């Protein structure tokens, strides 16, 4: 039997559409595979199909996952799909297939013996950990007009997982979080709902000057950061384990010298 590869757009909707189309084929699932973005090495004796992302199909798949597996498993799958990984589409597809065959579908994410489920579990954990790191280490700077501005450079697409946290925490602030890798801005106007903006249209924001208070408070925090360490216990290795170097270029206390 010939293998079939479905090429999907790298997004939640794209991959869910792919899963919908895979089921439409009514062929054994072992023969169908989902890949994300452009395939580099085309295989002989295999059929490649491009999936057009379809909101309706995607929301049906999402609905099925939530209904059958529960909210928590759905969240894990969303996290896995936000990861930067070539095989995530295939892993999620086969997780859905395995899960729907299980007796207790709600426990699908606990079944770590299954290599696909384990892969989804790993990807979801990676994204969740990175999102948490950003909740911890993200730093806002204040512009003259009072807007708070933060830049992040995450490996996975964590922006949508961290903004709700800050929107709840700083409801009366105007703030912007910019993912410089993917060129996405999350905008939060004071007292209103937050939204995403793609592209370069508002890059001019970044050319604003920082406020008077910004210098003062970043210096105060720098001072606090240094005095709070106990020199008799100095331990740079532990510091590096807890606070990986790659986050430091975005952090106020490491930018000062």
């Amino acid at each position, binding site marked *: 039997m010939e293998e079939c590869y479905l090429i999907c757009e790298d997004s939640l909707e794209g991959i869910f559409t792919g899963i919908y189309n895979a089921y439409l084929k009514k062929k054994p699932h072992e023969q169908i595979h989902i890949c994300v973005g452009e395939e580099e090495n085309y295989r002989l004796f295999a059929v490649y199909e491009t999936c057009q992302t379809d909101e309706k199909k995607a929301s049906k798949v999402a609905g099925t996952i939530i209904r059958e597996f529960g909210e928590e498993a759905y969240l894990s799958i969303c996290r896995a799909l936000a990861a930067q990984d070539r095989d995530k589409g295939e892993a999620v597809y086969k997780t859905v297939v395995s899960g729907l065959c299980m007796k207790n579908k709600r426990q699908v994410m606990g079944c770590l013996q299954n290599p696909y489920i384990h892969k989804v579990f790993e990807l979801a954990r990676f994204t969740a950990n990175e999102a948490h790191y950003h909740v911890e280490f993200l730093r806002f700077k204040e512009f003259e007009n009072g807007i708070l501005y933060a830049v992040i450079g995450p490996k996975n697409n964590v922006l949508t997982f961290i903004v709700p946290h800050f929107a709840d925490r700083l409801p009366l602030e105007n703030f912007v979080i910019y993912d410089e890798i993917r060129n996405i801005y999350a905008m939060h106007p004071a007292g209103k709902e937050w939204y995403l903006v793609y592209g370069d249209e508002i890059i001019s924001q970044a050319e604003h000057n920082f406020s008077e208070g910004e210098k003062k408070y970043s210096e*105060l925090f720098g001072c606090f950061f*240094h005095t709070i360490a106990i020199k*008799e216990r100095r331990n740079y290795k*532990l510091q590096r384990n807890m606070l990986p170097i790659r986050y430091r270029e975005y952090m106020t206390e490491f930018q000062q010298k």
Partner: protein
Amino acid sequence: MESNFILSTGGRQPGLQSALMSKENMSIMEKLKILSDAAKYDVSCSSSGVGRRGDGTGIGNTLAAGICHSFGADGRCISLLKILFTNECIYDCKYCINRKSNDVPRASFTPDEICELTIQFYRRNYIEGLFLSSGILYSPTYTMELIYEAVHKLRTLYRFQGYIHVKAIPGADPEIVNRLGLLADRMSVNLELPTAEGLKRLAPNKHRRNILTPMRQIQQGIIQNKNELVLYRNTPSFVPAGQSTQMIVGATPESDYQIMMVAENLYKKFDLKRVYYSAFVSVNEDKELPALPGGPPLLREHRLYQADWLLRFYGFEAGELLSEDKPNFNILLDPKADWALRHLEQFPVEINRADYHMILRVPGIGVKSAQRIVRARRNGNLNFDDLKKIGVTLKRALYFITCSGKMMYPTKIEEDYITRNLLSNKEKLPFDRDGMTYKQLSLFDDDQEEIRNWKNVI
């Protein structure tokens, strides 16, 4: 300083007002430097224990798991703006950098300065909240009034809904402890030293009973508040993140066994959320204090924390880990492996059938792995490959477990053999194996001798 506080003490301390006035000229930077430097020996920095969403009218929320925002050069987490209100102090505790007889620069914040710093740091996501402690100015009650004013202002005027941890000062009026508890998320009373004798020797102004009184009061306040919350949903919560304490390890000659028994009692009888252990850092020269040429006893502190985790999350009791005859932890093995080696008759454990609590006792398996094992085995038997994926450290666990009746490979279940094998995999310690730590190890090799030397000094 707010004038009403000076008046409220009835002007008993003339001269101090002017002393405080002169501090007004000090820049906020200088104050922050002095008062965070003075606060750094307080261990607790956690922002966990309470999850609370913002109500949309102010600033801040809290996460039950807590959030660290940075890590200092010592690798300790920086979660809260940890400062003292003032480092003036009427007490003369021998281990404390702020003791009365020390000649160090003194400073005091005003409540407004504390509020501004907290809010401005918080909006920039530098910190998770405020940790406010203080030296004793005039009297415990007076000092707590100062703390109360700052915290009250932060909660009401600035509408701050983030995390606040405050110290309850032993000897203060119970009424102020109660009022402060309704504003704070966590309160702590420092036990300072594990035993009453140690306290008497090193902190002549403090008494064990005075320390336990507010601890009991906070515990009862929390229980009462929980009952009220059942009846009336909108009752303000009292210390919702619970209370903690800390004790200094290595300044007095208590054994690990004594320390663990104290900790266990605090967890069981006082419902504490956390007990912190703080390796003694020698900041003062005093004949009553031990000399620690190897630096602070970090390995010992580490072992105590490992054992503390065993008490809180692994269902162990202090009496299982140590005893009168074996009063100190093994320096080479962590307490769990040490326990397992002394109880080989309970091993090997069958992963696919054993009770969760027994799986938790296997070296190399932590709480998360144990939970995952229990969940995963519902869908079929697990083998060693699966365990590896789940996160079990097999090179430690393999001597203690079987999967479907088989061990990973044939091994002897014999104390010496397993010990040798466990030791050949270097234990991961959270501090460098550099000069400092080597000295540390050698210091602990002759632990008893160290204590003897210490006694000679006295």
